């Protein structure tokens, strides 16, 4: 198929953004069976997507609202309550 790899790389990316249609899924699968370059590409961007997701969770899981900032917000809430 003409422009296959270009099209398949697009589908590989869209797969991470929206559910692919049945036809799109079949085209992607079939092409990946035959083409190692696209297979690597698909694996890489999926891997990257997952790594970044895990990283997001890990990076911020211990973050707490610092007490000085908490006090400031507290005060502003009091002010608005007085109005």
């Amino acid at each position, binding site marked *: 198929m*003409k*422009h*296959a*790899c*270009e*099209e398949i*790389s*697009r589908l590989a*990316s*869209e797969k*991470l*953004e*929206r559910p692919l249609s049945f036809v799109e899924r079949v085209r992607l699968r079939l092409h990946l069976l035959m083409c*190692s*370059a*696209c297979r*690597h*590409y698909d*694996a*890489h*961007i999926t*891997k*990257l*997507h*997952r*790594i*970044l*997701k*895990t*990283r*997001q969770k*890990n*990076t*911020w*899981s211990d*973050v*707490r*609202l*610092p007490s000085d*900032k*908490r006090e*400031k*917000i*507290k005060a*502003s*809430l*009091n002010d*608005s*309550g007085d109005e």
Partner: protein
Amino acid sequence: MDPQQWLTEHGDILYRFAMQRAQNEELAADLVQETLLAAWKSKDSFSGNSTIRTWLIGILKHKWIDYLRKEIRQRDHATLAEGDPTAWFDPNNGSWLKKPQQWHDDPASLCQDTQFFQVLQTCVQHLPEKQRLVFDMRELQGLDSDEICKACDVSATNVHVLLHRARLALQQCLEIHWFGGKKPW
């Protein structure tokens, strides 16, 4: 209904959510404050169908998208040039000009590898502005496509195209500067 109690119970969660997106302590704290003030003002709109926490996070999400919209408008980079996607493929037959090679690193160990993330950050910074912005919102801040559409005033298709181009560029960049064993810059 007591905003002080919201702050006590949900302050950390809201701040974490804001930090993940804003990655800046002052800005994140401002967002939490604005969220709680806005929630207090519109407390009558709380339907009770969701938990207070979900309701507050919903408001925070809106605040963040509003902030991004303003930022993006100010920068006005509508005219900035974007990378040409065809540069990755042979214009005659759409096959790869430079075929992706297999990566040998284990994803679990990459997650722990700060050097890998430095290389990735540098690769992201080298993206054309719009691609960088959209990739950052999607993969680093964890927004979904819908939220990005709202923030940037572009269609879902546009967001998908920008993400697609960003991923092409990043995989190439990582292949050269990380997996290819070349020293990062």
